[in-house]
Structure formats: C-alpha cells, structure tokens
C-alpha cells in the first residue's frame, strides 16, 4: 500500500492496470485523454499485458469493446461528452448483448456551443442505455469504483459506467491510496468469461429480436439491473473488508437529525459538505446526500433518508429542456411520490458547462430550501449562478 499524489484520471488508469484488463479500445477526447494515454504507456512499456486497439472513432471503440467482451475478455474504455454521444447506439447493444464492459466517462458538457468543461449532460443523455452508472466524488473513489466496476459487471453481465467530473476530478491532483497489486488481484481475479463467439460452439450473437422475442430480451436487462442491487452491495462490502473503504449506494453527510438537505452527484458533493458543516456550526440542521449509484437508482435509501425531512433541494448539473423537471430531480420526486412521502422538494440547476459553483451558491441553495419550507410551496427550478 502506498499513498501518492494522483489526478482522478491517473487513478482510474492505475485501477485498470491493477485489474489486469485484456483489451483496451479507445479514442482520445478531452478531458478523458490522459486515462488512455497512461494505459497505452503501460502497454507500451510492458507493465500491462493487454491488447490496446487504436480505433478511428468512439463508435468503433465501443463496437470493438463489445466484440472483445463477447470472447470472454476483460475490457475497458474511456470517453467524454461527444465521444459518449457518438457511442450512443452501441451502448444499448453492449447492455442488450450482456457484455460486462467497464467504461470511465469523464463528464463534460455537450455542444453547442463547443465546451470542454464539466457538467453531467453526457451521462444523463445515456441514462436509459441499460448501463449501471456509478458516480464518484474524489480521485480515491474513482480508483475504488473502477475496481468494483469490473467485479460488478462480470457478476451481473452488464456494462458499468464510472462517472467522474471533467477537470474538477479528472485533472485534480490529490492523495490516493494505492493498494498492493496482489491484493487487487485477489479482489478481481483474472477469470476468463464465457467465450460466446468461439467457432467451437458456433453460437449466434446479435440476432434479430422480432416482436415476439424483443420484449422478453429487453426485460432480461431490466431484471438484471434490478437484481444488480444486491451484487453491488456485496461487492462493496467485500471491497470494504479488503481495503477499508465502503461506499454504499448513497453517501450521507450529517443526515441523522437533518431538517433540510441538498441532494448532489459527483464533485458538487465536496463543497456542499463543507458548506453544510459550516451551517451546522451556526445551528442549522442541514445535511447532504450524494448519489453514488445512479443506475440502479437507490430507491429504498432515498425514501429512508429523505422521506421525513422538511425540505430537500436537488442539484442537477444537467437540464431536460421542456421537461417537467431535470433528470436527478425527476428520479428523486418519482421515488418519494411512489412511497407517499412528500418533503418539500426544490429543484436547482448549477454548474453547466464548467461554471464554478462556489461556496456562496451552496449557501444560497440551503437558504432557499429553508425559505420554501417556510412559504409552504416550492418555486420553479432555480438556475443558480445564471446571469440575467
């Protein structure tokens, strides 16, 4: 074990190397590039024995990953924004064909206008692709989640997307504890999966699913991702026993006796916690709940932790233009409505296109949640930090 200074992207690359992947197929895109750059370096200098496939686009990258995964190989790729969008149709094939691919998605805004900075619109647009989605809040978590992802994916035969915020996590150097490689191998042993395209068996893969078959096949994906909850919990528990860090589906901060809370994902969580901690010192009963596992969505945990609060602010770093609400808010509201629990919910949007979300913005959000509870009625979505 050693404690080093690493960027979020390098933390992911080290996790992939330690997991001893067989195939990496990727196309460079900012701010993901340094992950696959590091991996190609590992392959080139013999530190990682893997097939590194240079492709001409992200569409081909994901296609190569699907093919490689069907042979039973351990497969990794990474992308961002436009790259993820270009993979769109193949993402659905990856889940439909039940290929346990692990992908790091370094969150970046979608054009136009062209923007290389962080928000969550790329991953939110692939919400329904049948992928498990993990979201991290630090470089350490990026490392840990990537390792867990291989184990989860291969156990439930579904692809896993590890989301880390572009620049704010991907390019920030901070302390990361790297475990011994031998311990990592024990956690994710190399185990050849079933080769589903071997000429020996002559399986047919990627067949037509006519109306009398497609529905059942799609439902298998729905069922698998529902059932993955237990596997995710088990893998996380095992990770905790081995490495001393456990994450669960959600990360709760000062929630025990909270009256008000903000719900966040990814890098927004840290600053939200710092502000909550300050407000606690002033006597405000506030907390922060961050969603680590966005798909499958942690319904039980949400109801248990938010159901009895007075007010909850949900911070989306993506928008659903013309929709009834933004993606994270929609899921929180649906979950609570289903269980008949109705804390006052206030919708926020913050930090689009890499706009910094400073301490004062979080103070404003906590304050507004308290205000709307007093008023007894929530306001339309508040676009925090937007210039009039």
């Amino acid at each position, binding site marked *: 074990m050693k404690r080093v200074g690493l960027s979020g992207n390098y933390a992911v690359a080290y996790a992939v190397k330690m997991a001893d992947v067989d195939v990496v197929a990727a196309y460079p895109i900012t701010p993901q590039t340094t992950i696959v750059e590091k991996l190609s370096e590992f392959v080139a200098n013999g530190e990682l024995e893997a097939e590194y496939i240079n492709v001409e686009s992200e569409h081909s990258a994901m296609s190569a990953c699907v093919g490689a995964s069907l042979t039973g190989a351990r497969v990794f790729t990474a992308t961002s924004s436009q790259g993820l969008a270009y993979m769109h149709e193949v993402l659905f094939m990856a889940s*439909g*064909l*039940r*290929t346990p691919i692990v992908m790091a998605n370094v969150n970046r805004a979608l054009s136009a206008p062209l923007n290389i900075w962080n928000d969550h619109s790329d991953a939110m647009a692939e919400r329904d692709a049948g992928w498990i989605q993990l979201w991290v809040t630090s470089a350490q978590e990026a490392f840990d989640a990537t390792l867990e992802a291989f184990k989860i994916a291969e156990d439930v*035969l579904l692809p896993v997307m590890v989301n880390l915020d572009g620049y704010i996590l991907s390019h920030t150097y901070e302390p990361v504890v790297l475990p011994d490689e031998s311990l990592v191998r024990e956690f994710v042993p190399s185990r050849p999966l079933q080769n*589903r395209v071997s000429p020996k*068996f*002559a*399986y*047919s*893969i*990627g*067949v037509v*699913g006519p109306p*009398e*078959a497609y529905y*059942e*096949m799609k*439902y*298998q994906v729905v*069922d*698998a991702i529902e059932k993955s909850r237990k596997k995710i919990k088990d893998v996380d528990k095992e990770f905790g026993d081995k490495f001393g860090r456990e994450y669960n589906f959600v990360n709760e901060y000062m929630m025990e006796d909270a009256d008000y809370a903000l719900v966040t994902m990814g890098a927004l969580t840290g600053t939200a916690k710092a502000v909550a901690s300050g407000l606690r010192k002033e006597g405000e009963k506030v907390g922060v709940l961050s969603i680590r596992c966005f798909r499958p969505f942690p319904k039980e945990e949400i109801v248990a932790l938010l159901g009895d609060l007075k007010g909850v602010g949900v911070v989306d770093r993506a928008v659903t233009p013309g929709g009834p609400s933004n993606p994270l808010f929609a899921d929180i509201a649906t979950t609570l409505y289903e269980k008949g629990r109705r804390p006052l919910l206030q919708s926020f949007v913050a930090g689009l296109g890499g706009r910094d979300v400073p301490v004062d913005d979080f103070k404003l959000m906590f304050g507004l949640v308290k205000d709307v509870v007093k008023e007894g009625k929530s306001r339309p979505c508040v676009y925090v930090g937007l210039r009039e």
Partner: protein
Amino acid sequence: MSRLKGWKEIPIGGTIVEPGSSVEFDVSSWRTYRPLFDKKKCTKCGMCWIFCPEGAIKINDDGTYDVNLSYCKGCGICQRACAVKAITMVKEG
C-alpha cells in the same frame, strides 16, 4: 400455436446456443412455383448455386445442380441466373 418461451426461459443477450438451427426450418409449403433442372442443358457453371438466396441448391455427384425442396421458396432467381436456360419454373400442383 405452440407456446413461446418466457423471459426466464430464453438465453440472455439474444444468443442462439444451438448451432445451425436454420436447417430445421422447412419452407416447402411457401412455394407457388418450383424449379425444374434439365441435366442435359446444364453446363455445371454453378450460377444457380451462387445466386440462390436461401442456399437451397445442391450439387449432384456428376457436377450438375438440383434443388433441395425443403428450403426452396420458389423465387425463380436460379432460373434468371441460368445462362443456358436449363431451369424452368413450374407451378406446384
């Protein structure tokens, strides 16, 4: 109609695990016309074999061609492809 398999019964990922299952698929009753091969005219060029979209043309021991009627849908493409007009399409009885 026979009962179709439920979602728990079919292999995951749309995999067909039994190889060559199309051999069991008989389309004999789909035809209106069937091809008749005239061995005397046949030059063994193999164009009918190449063009048949169903893979229903078989090769005789003497190198001439014939049809496997279990898989022929009677489309007539072999007749069009045959340069020496050794194939005639006749109505099924």
